[in-house]
C-alpha cells in the first residue's frame, strides 16, 4: 500500500515539491572502455557501474542491474570528470570590489544555474568547477564549488553542498590597482597587501576573543558585558585561522608567494592553495613543503607587468618538486578544453599520462578538499565520468558523454544547436561571442567603476 502511495506521488511529480529539492542521482553501466582511473592505473576494456550516483563496481563482465542503462564504450576512453579549480562560470557577480577585505561576501548567493557556460563546460568534460570571487580585493569573497548539474533551476542544486568552504585572496597588481590607485586607500603596494592581510587576521583574533569572553560571561550572575559587534567579515577570517576554510590565493610573483607562505606560517594557516602562480617554479620547494599546492595556467602570460617572467614548464617543475599542481581555466572558453591544456605539460616537461591527467582531476580535487569524493575512478566515489573518443591527452580527443552523479548531462549525439535553459522573452537572441576575449576572463569583472579611465581603456586583460 505504501509503495503504491509513493508511486502515486512520484507519478504526479509531487515527490520533489519539498522546499529543499533533492539532488538528482542516477545509475549507469559503462562497458568495455579503457578506464583511466588516474589513481589506480589504467584498465583495458573494463566496466564501471554507477548506482544511485556512486561508483559501486569497477571490473570486467559486470552485468547491468535491473533497470540500469548500459552504455557500450568499446574503443573509447573513460576518465573521471574534469575539475576546474579556478572558474567564474555561473556567477551573476564576480567582484564585490568595493573594499580590500570582503570575506563576508558569498559567491553561493549569486550562483546562476541558467548560465550556458555550465553546459559548455560539460561539453569539455568538466563536471566540477570552483566558482571564485574575483581578484580585485586582497581578501575577496567565499567561493562556491559547483557540480555541473545542467538543467537545475535552484542554485542550491548545482552547489556541491558537501565540499568544504574556500575563499579567494589576491596579491599584487589587481588589489593595488583597484584600491590603491583607483580609490586612494590601502593597499597601494605589495607591502600594503601584506599589511592588509596581517591586520585582518589580527583583528579576527581580537574578534574571536571578544565573542569568547562574551559567551563565557553571558550567563554568569550580574553580568554587565554586552554583546560585541557582529561581523561575518572577521568571523570568516577567524574561521580561516581555525582551519575551516581553504585559502585560494591569486598570485604571480615568487616574492609575494613566499610572503604569503610566511604569513600563513605566522598565523598557523595550513590550508593554502596558490592560483595562477606564474613564478611558482622559483619557489616550488617552498610551495611543496608548506601548502596544498598551486593551480596554474598551462601557457598563458604577459598580459600585465607582473606576469612576464613565466614559463610553460611551470606546472612540470612544480609537480616534480612535489607540489600538488593543477591546471585551471579562469575562462569560459578554456574550460571547454582543459584536457588539452593538461596535455601541454607533456610537451613542456614530459610529464607522464597519469601526472598530466591528475592535473585536471585528483589534484584540483585535493586543492578543493573533495578528493575523497571525486577526482578519480574508484569504488565509493561519486559517479562523475567522461567518455572520450580517443585518449584525452591526444590532440584529437573529443568528449562524447559527460556524467555527474551517474546522470548524463552531455551527449555529443544529442547536442542541440540551442541548448539554452533560459530564454529571455524580450530579447531576440542573446549575444554569442566567438572570440574568447569578449566574454572569457572575468577575474576583474564588475570592477570598472573603481579603476581610473586609463585602466579601463588600456588594461583590458583582467586576470
Amino acid at each position, binding site marked *: 500500500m505504501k509503495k503504491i502511495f509513493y508511486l502515486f506521488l512520484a507519478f504526479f511529480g509531487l515527490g520533489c*515539491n*519539498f*522546499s529543499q529539492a533533492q539532488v538528482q542521482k542516477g545509475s549507469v553501466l559503462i562497458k568495455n572502455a579503457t578506464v583511466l582511473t588516474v589513481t589506480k592505473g589504467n584498465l583495458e576494456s573494463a566496466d564501471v557501474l554507477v548506482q544511485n550516483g556512486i561508483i559501486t563496481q569497477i571490473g570486467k563482465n559486470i552485468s547491468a542491474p535491473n533497470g540500469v542503462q548500459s552504455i557500450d564504450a568499446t574503443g573509447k576512453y573513460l576518465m573521471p570528470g574534469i575539475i576546474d579549480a579556478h572558474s567564474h562560470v555561473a556567477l*551573476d*557577480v564576480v*567582484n*564585490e*570590489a*568595493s*573594499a*580590500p577585505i*570582503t570575506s*563576508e*561576501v*558569498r*559567491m553561493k*548567493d*549569486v550562483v*546562476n544555474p541558467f548560465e550556458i557556460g555550465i553546459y559548455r563546460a560539460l561539453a569539455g568534460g568538466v563536471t566540477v568547477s570552483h566558482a571564485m*570571487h574575483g581578484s580585485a580585493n586582497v581578501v575577496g*569573497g567565499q567561493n562556491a564549488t559547483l557540480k555541473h548539474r545542467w538543467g537545475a*533551476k*535552484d*542554485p542550491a542544486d548545482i552547489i556541491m553542498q558537501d565540499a568544504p568552504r574556500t575563499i579567494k585572496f589576491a596579491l599584487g597588481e589587481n588589489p593595488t590597482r583597484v*584600491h590603491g590607485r583607483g*580609490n586612494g*586607500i590601502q593597499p597601494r603596494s605589495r607591502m600594503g597587501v601584506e599589511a592588509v592581510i596581517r591586520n585582518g587576521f589580527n583583528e579576527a583574533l581580537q574578534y574571536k576573543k571578544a565573542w569568547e569572553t562574551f559567551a563565557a560571561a553571558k550567563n554568569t550572575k*550580574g*553580568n*554587565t558585558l*554586552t*554583546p560585541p*559587534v*557582529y*561581523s*561575518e*567579515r572577521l568571523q570568516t577570517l577567524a574561521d580561516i585561522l581555525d582551519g575551516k576554510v581553504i585559502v585560494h590565493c591569486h598570485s604571480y610573483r615568487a616574492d609575494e608567494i613566499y610572503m604569503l607562505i610566511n604569513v600563513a606560517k605566522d598565523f598557523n594557516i595550513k590550508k593554502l592553495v596558490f592560483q595562477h602562480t606564474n613564478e611558482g617554479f622559483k619557489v616550488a620547494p617552498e610551495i611543496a613543503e608548506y601548502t596544498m599546492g598551486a593551480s596554474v595556467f598551462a601557457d598563458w602570460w604577459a598580459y600585465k607587468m607582473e606576469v612576464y617572467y613565466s614559463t610553460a614548464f611551470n606546472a612540470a617543475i612544480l609537480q616534480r618538486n612535489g607540489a600538488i599542481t593543477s591546471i585551471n581555466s579562469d575562462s569560459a572558453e578554456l574550460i571547454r578544453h582543459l584536457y588539452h591544456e593538461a596535455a601541454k605539460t607533456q610537451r613542456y616537461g614530459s610529464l607522464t599520462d597519469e601526472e598530466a591527467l591528475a592535473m585536471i582531476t585528483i589534484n584540483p580535487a585535493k586543492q578543493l578538499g573533495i578528493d575523497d569524493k571525486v577526482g578519480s575512478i574508484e569504488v565509493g566515489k561519486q559517479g562523475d565520468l567522461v567518455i572520450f573518443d580517443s585518449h584525452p591527452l591526444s590532440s584529437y580527443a573529443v568528449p562524447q558523454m559527460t556524467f555527474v552523479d551517474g546522470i548524463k548531462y552531455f551527449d555529443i549525439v544529442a547536442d542541440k*544547436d*540551442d541548448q*539554452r535553459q533560459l*530564454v*529571455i*522573452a*524580450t*530579447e*531576440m*537572441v542573446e549575444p554569442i561571442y566567438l572570440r574568447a576575449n569578449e566574454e572569457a576572463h572575468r577575474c576583474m*569583472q*564588475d570592477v*570598472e*567603476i*573603481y579603476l*581610473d*579611465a*586609463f585602466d*579601463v*581603456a588600456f588594461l*583590458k586583460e583582467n586576470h
Partner: protein
Amino acid sequence: MMIFGWVMQISWAQSDPSGKRRVTSSFAITNATVIKSPGDPGSKATVLFKDGIITGIGVGLSIPKDAQVISGDSLYVYPAFIDGGSNIGISKPKEAERPKDLVTSNPPDEFAGITPWRLATDFYSNTSTQVDEWRKVGFAMTQIIPDGGMLPGKTALVSLGDPKSIAIIQANVAMAANFRGSRGMYPGTVAGVMAKFRDVYQNSTLALEHEKMFASAAGVKRPQTTPTQLAMGPVVQRQLPILFTANSELEVRRAISLQKELGFKLILTGLENYDSVIDLIKNSGTSVMLKLQVPDDKSIKSQKEEGVTEATKAQYTRVKEAYDNSLKQAANLEKAGVSFGFSTLDTKASDVHKALSTMIANGLSEKAVLAALTTNPASVLGISRIAGTLEKGKLANLILATEPLFKESSQIKHVIVDGYVFDYEVKKKANSAPNSSTKPENTAITVEGTWEYLSETPAGSSGGEITIKKENGVLGGSITYDDPTGSGKASAPIKNVTLTGKNLSFEFDIAAGGMSFTVTVSGEVNGKSMEGNLSVPQMGSFPVKATLSSPSQIN
C-alpha cells in the same frame, strides 16, 4: 480614525471663498450592477455612502434627502483597486553631498543606500499628477515605497483621494528592501548587498539585546544604537515585514533564502519572471505582489518571415515560447493556489488594462484578477476590515465602469475614493473596429524640459538629470551624471540630439583621468517617459529610463 482628517474639514468649514466646497458628502448610486467582491456575479442594487463610508447596499433602500444621486442604470460598480507597491507620488530623496574624506570601502549608511529610518510619507505628494493617472485606471489606495538603495525606508499606505485631504491611511506598513548596490562603494553588488543585509540584521538584533540589558541592570555600558539599528528594531522583532523587490526567479530565491536564514516576515514585490519558483513561493507561504505588466513584444514583432536560416527560426520559436510562457505565469500561480496582489512599481498606468486583459486571455480568471486588485492586497496589508470589498461600513472606494470591468471595451466613468467622486471622460463607442493604426499620430512629441533618468549598470544604478531645450530650432542641452572619479555629480553638454518620430537620441562626453569617452543614449519617448539604452564604449550597453519631470512651457 484615519479618515477623520478630511471629514472634519468638510463638516466644519464655515465659509468657502473658493466656491469649490462640495454641496454634500452623501451619495447614492441607484440601480447599478454591483459586484461586491471577487467572484460575485453581480446584481442590481443601490449603493449609499456618506462621509466616505458605505452606508448601505441593496434593493429598495430609501435615498437620503441630502444625497446626490448618480444614476447607475447602465453602470457596473466594483470595489476600487489596491496597489500592493508603488512609487506613485514619490520623489527621490535629495542626495547628500559626499564628504571629501568619504571612505568608499566603508561609507556611512546613508551613502550606502541604507536609510531604513526614512518614511515614504516624507517623500509623498498627493498633488502629483501620478495620483490622478493611477486613480483614473481604478486605484484608490497604494502602498508607497520610498526611493533609494538596499534599505530605502518604510512604506506607507495612502489613499489616492482628494488632494486636499490627508492621504496617509497607515504609516510604517513594511520595510522596503532591494538587491540594488550603491554605485562605487560598499556594498556595490548583489553579493555585497546580501552580505551587508545579514550584517545590518544581526547587529540590529544585538543592539536590541544591549538596550534590554542597559534597561534592566546597572553597570552596563550605554548602548549606542545607530539610526539604522533603531529603524530595523521592529523588523528583527518580526513586527514589521520586509517588502523585498525581487524581479527574477533568482532574486525571489535570494530573498527567500535570506528570510529562511534570518527569520523576518517577508513580502515579495515586483515579480516579473517567477514561473520556476511558484512551488517555492507556495511552500514558503510568502505573500507576493506581481509586477502589473506584461513583457513587451518587440522581440516577437521583429521576427522576420523570410531570409532567415533554419537555426534563426528555431531561435525565434524559443523566444516566442518564452514569451508565451511569461504571459501564462499569473495563471499558473492561480492554478497552484497561490493568492497574489499586484505592484505598479516601474509600470505605466496606461498599460494596466492591456496587462490585465493579456493575463486573462492567457488563463488567469477574472475572479483572481479582481482578488489580486482588491481582497488579496487588503489582506496582506492588514486592511480587510476597511477595504477590499463593497460592504456596509467599509470605505467608499468604488469603480463605476460602463461595462463589466475586464471587457475589452469597458471604460471607467467614475472612481470614488473616500467618498469623493472623480469623473472621467467616456469615449463614445466606435461603431466599427478602431482604425487608429492607419491614422497618423498627430500628437507632437515633447522632449523639451528636464528629465530625470536612471540607468542600471552591473556596478549599480546611477542617474541624474537631462535638460533638453531648443535654440534656433536645434535641440541641445546638458546632462548630469555620477562623477566617475567618485564624488558627486558632473555635468556635460549633450550633442547630436535627434528626435525622429518617437525616438530620441543624443551623445555626451565624459572626461576622466585625461581620457574621454562618448556615451550614446537612445530611447523611445512615450508621453512623459522614455526607455532605451545608454552605451559606453568598451563597457557595454545598459538600460536607461527617464521621466520628463518638468516639461518646458510651449509657447
